[in-house]
């Protein structure tokens, strides 16, 4: 593999609209709910109204007799095998067997000729529940005598992690100053606009096909196999267009998927399920709410010596990927600042709430909020500039963190400086009128991680006789632009146009296996695989071209602008499509390139925490300017400027979209979003009441800035690293620090709602009337 110098690219590094933009805006793209199969039935799920109860009996007979109902199933229609992501976290069942653990837990499913009949049938299913005492608070759930959710998890301990690197006691002893704070974060939903949807078919040969909106179709494939007790060779998952993923359930096999295929088996017809948005917002998968205790020791000059982090996370009723969720905050405390001594303890606790998992940044933004809020507190105590304390402690390329992260490219200082510059920090900080403030927050993220099981990405490049290319990978475009960026990589290598590349959706019978879309891995991992595959195809073509053009193969055949020529004598050239026809028609060859990439990094034991998780790490810095209305407590975001080290922006337009999207989600969590629950019941399961920020809540475009810090990572495809998640990590702390700068009041609990701010301001005025 040759590493090309950046800058001399035909396609890479130039802004290009998403390949699927046209079919999406015109409504041509077929989402799962747009698909209709002949004879298709409609399914609906019956959900538990109780937060915690035993199921003593389910009578489906009346529902089955309703005209138009074709089948009704319960947990007994499945083999009773628990499924999940990791061996320790397998606690999902397609439908509850003996117990429900949260309001919304799936209990039974119906297939009927239309949605109306299916809904009506749900009313006719009689479930006898014996309500059990429930627990909704993680700390309550840890206490002896608390209601127990799972037999295997004593004291409701879902996942536990503890590790120490260096000597924290010594670090604290050597510190000039200790700062200790307790932070609290709220449950936040992914908020994807397309609800979960699928069609399941169990045909007469016993082959199972699932068409579904999935961000990680191969995970779904394996989990279906696990939960059904059926070999993967009999299961085929076909991905449809995805209207937003964010790990809101589309990364897994959900109860609807299992029910669709098993109902199909019973009825002999395909069955479609589509969640309503209120179901989406009620059921599991959301960001972990946490209590975060953080103690930090520093020297007078601001040098960080030690940090001790303790987390209690409300995991909700099921595990999801809890072990990983609990590893990440402690691991990522090692970035982007140099902390020689780190101690970490985390507990993920089962409660009778909807369950938690990943959401853009997973459990990292919560900790960045705490850590970067606390950095400002420390800076103020020590009389230091908040920028200086960040720059002083920022990691530099080439360092290895105490937990074993090997830092390659890492433009942290540049991120901080660019964000300062873009925001006009120096002109503003300390000079803004009262109730207007500016603050910074920083964060860091991985470019994909080595995970258990299959970690590699694979790509096939099939070159066709008209000079176009079918690019086949196991990766999904969830709106982030994978289809475009992966196609750009192939187009660049083969010297063809972006429009010459066709990107296929995943079909587990056809496309190569892939772990899925998570941890910001696709551009880096699949991108590398695509580059290798395209280079393989190019090599095959170069040999034929060299012969035809009477060039030494060493002469370096150039592929560019759909032309193939000899570098030393560009007059000797061929059209790309001519070359392909020459290979295929005259020589009987088929030009198919293949490539696979895996990072070769260590498999991390999430409980001990040591090892290099990712081949590359990205830092980011964000500056937010706010105005606070002291009479209503309402915060208006006046400006937001970020800088992010994405290695090299393969498509600057998409990088900007990703970074701004991440930033808006950060602002949403800081100021607006909160899944409100009363005794386990979600009170705001609609986008009217679950308040994500809207255009009107954003600053004017002139006050929104994004700067790419370019570090050309040698292990990323064309120098690229992660771009979609890291930018969200520092945003919440930036808002917190800006609100503090505006009001003099420090908020440690999310979200910073008007009510909270207004009453805190009143309290602070009462204590110190003359500020």
């Amino acid at each position, binding site marked *: 593999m040759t590493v090309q110098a950046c800058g001399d690219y035909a396609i890479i590094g130039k802004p290009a609209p998403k390949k699927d933009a046209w079919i999406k805006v015109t409504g041509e793209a077929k989402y799962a709910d747009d698909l209709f199969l002949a004879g298709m039935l409609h399914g609906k799920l019956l959900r538990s109204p109780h937060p915690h109860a035993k199921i003593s009996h389910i009578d489906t007979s009346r529902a089955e007799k309703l005209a138009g109902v074709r089948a009704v199933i319960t947990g007994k229609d499945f083999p009773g095998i628990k499924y999940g992501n990791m061996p320790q976290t397998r606690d999902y069942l397609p439908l509850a067997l003996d117990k429900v653990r949260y309001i919304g837990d799936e209990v039974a499913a119906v297939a009927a000729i239309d949605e109306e009949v299916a809904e009506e049938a749900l009313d006719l299913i009689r479930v006898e529940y014996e309500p059990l005492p429930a627990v909704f608070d993680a700390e309550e759930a840890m206490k002896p005598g608390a209601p127990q959710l799972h037999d295997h998890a004593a004291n409701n301990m879902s996942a536990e992690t503890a590790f120490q690197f260096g000597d924290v006691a010594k670090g604290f002893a050597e510190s000039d100053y200790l700062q200790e704070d307790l932070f609290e974060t709220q449950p936040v939903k992914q908020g994807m606009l397309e609800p979960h949807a699928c069609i399941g078919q169990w045909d007469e040969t016993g082959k199972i096909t699932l068409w579904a909106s999935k961000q990680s179709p191969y995970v779904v494939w394996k989990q279906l196999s696990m939960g059904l007790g059926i070999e993967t060779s009999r299961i085929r998952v076909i991905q449809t267009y995805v209207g937003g993923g964010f790990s809101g359930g589309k990364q897994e096999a959900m109860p609807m998927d299992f029910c669709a295929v098993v109902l199909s088996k019973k009825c002999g017809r395909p069955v479609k399920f589509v969640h309503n948005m209120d179901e989406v917002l009620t059921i599991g998968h959301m960001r972990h709410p946490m209590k975060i205790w953080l103690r930090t020791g520093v020297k007078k000059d601001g040098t960080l010596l030690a940090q001790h982090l303790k987390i209690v996370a409300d995991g909700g009723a099921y595990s999801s990927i809890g072990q990983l969720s609990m590893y990440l905050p402690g691991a990522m405390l090692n970035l982007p600042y140099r902390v020689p001594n780190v101690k970490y303890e985390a507990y993920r606790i089962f409660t009778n709430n909807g369950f938690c998992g990943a959401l853009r940044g997973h459990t990292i933004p919560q900790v960045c909020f705490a850590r970067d809020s606390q950095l400002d507190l420390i800076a103020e105590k020590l009389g230091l500039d908040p920028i200086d304390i960040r720059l002083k402690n920022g990691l530099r390329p080439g360092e290895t963190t105490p937990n074993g992260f090997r830092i390659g490219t890492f433009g942290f200082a540049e991120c901080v400086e660019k964000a300062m510059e873009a925001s006009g920090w120096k002109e503003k900080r300390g000079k803004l009128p009262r109730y207007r403030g500016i603050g910074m927050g920083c964060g860091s993220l991985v470019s994909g991680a080595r995970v258990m099981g299959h970690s590699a990405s694979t790509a096939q490049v099939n070159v066709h006789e008209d000079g176009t290319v079918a690019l086949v990978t196991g990766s999904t475009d969830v709106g982030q632009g994978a289809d475009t960026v992966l196609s750009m990589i192939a187009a660049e290598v083969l010297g063809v146009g972006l429009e010459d590349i066709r990107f296929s959706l995943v079909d587990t019978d056809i496309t190569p296996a892939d772990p899925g879309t998570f941890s910001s891995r696709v551009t880096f991992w699949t991108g590398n695989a695509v580059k290798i595959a395209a280079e393989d195809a190019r090599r095959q073509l170069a040999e034929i071209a060299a012969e035809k053009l009477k060039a030494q193969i060493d002469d370096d055949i150039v592929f560019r602008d759909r032309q193939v020529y000899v570098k030393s004598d560009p007059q000797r050239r061929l059209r790309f499509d001519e070359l392909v026809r020459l290979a295929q028609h005259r020589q009987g060859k088929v030009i198919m390139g293949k490539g696979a990439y895996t990072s070769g990094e260590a498999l991390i034991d999430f409980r001990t925490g040591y090892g290099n998780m990712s081949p590359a790490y990205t830092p980011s810095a964000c500056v937010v300017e706010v105005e606070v209305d002291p009479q209503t407590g309402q915060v208006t975001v006046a400006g937001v400027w970020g800088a992010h080290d994405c290695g090299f922006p393969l498509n600057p337009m998409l990088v900007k979209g990703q970074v701004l999207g991440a930033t808006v989600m950060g602002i949403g969590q800081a100021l607006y979003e909160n899944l409100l629950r009363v005794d386990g019941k979600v009170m705001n399961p609609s986008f009217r009441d679950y308040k994500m920020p809207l255009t009107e*809540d954003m600053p004017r475009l002139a006050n929104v800035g994004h700067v790419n810090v370019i570090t050309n990572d040698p292990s990323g495809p064309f120098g690229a690293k992660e771009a979609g998640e890291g930018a969200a990590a520092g945003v919440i702390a930036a808002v917190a620090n800006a609100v503090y700068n505006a009001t003099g009041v420090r908020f440690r609990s999310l979200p910073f*709602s008007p009510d909270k701010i207004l009453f805190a301001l009143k309290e602070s005025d009462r204590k110190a009337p003359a500020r």
Partner: protein
Amino acid sequence: MGYLRRLPRFDYLAPRTVDEACSALAERRGDARLFAGGTDLVLQMKRREITPRAIIGLKGVASLSVIRSQAGGIAIGAMTTFGAIESSPLIREKHDFLCETAAGIGSPEIRAVATVGGNLSGALPCADFPAPLMTLGAIVRLRSVRGERALALEDFFMGFAETAAAPDEILTEIELPSRPGFSAGAYVKFHDRHAMDMTTTGVAAFVTWDRARGLIGDVRIALSVSGPVPLRVKNAEAALRGRRLTEEALVEAGLLACREAQPRASWRAREEFRRELIGVLTQRALRQAGEKARVAAERGNA
């Protein structure tokens, strides 16, 4: 469980005139609901909170969506959408703050279907339009097969989702008396987001300036989402009449309005927070309306 469902089955009746609508309502008395914009009704039906056998759609009754000038003021048909109010030159000329209030309701999509009559007849505490209309002394016209009657809007709201309209009566029109000289209104509301959000609490104020004495002449203040029904805060009003428009007077009015309000605590907002807001928004609404009326008086623009 309260999950949203497909709409239940119902008969759809499409009268073309008010008389036809009244007959249909009388005939299907008890099991029919009037359908205006449907922004509340559809949700209530999808949640199965109500399951009427018949829906009487009023969209085809053209006479109900007319905005017109009449002796002594203007009349707004009950089926007028907020979008139409927002862009009505007549309403902008007579009561411009109603255009602003309409423009602040929901999203453009909602404003294209939601109607003023629905906003009043639904009698939900979160409705934005009753309070400003109350400060203008609005009268509502009710029609039934039995005849027609008029009622002050203030007497229209009986409780949560409850109005003085009889089951066979249709709200047809809202009448607004002519605006006195040197007067102006304002409606100020708060919600968590900056737009397209449900009102936490809102305050409407209408001030008539006493030009001769340079004082507040008449004043009316009405609150949204501050009790089970939209309400006038008459102590606050009384305290302001004949006063100068000073910060002190506004603060006092805010405190009085707080005292008269009956906001409830819910998962949407704490009672204490709503009370704080009522005070602040009362001041803001009065300042806006008062300043505008004062300037009009000083410039002699009636």
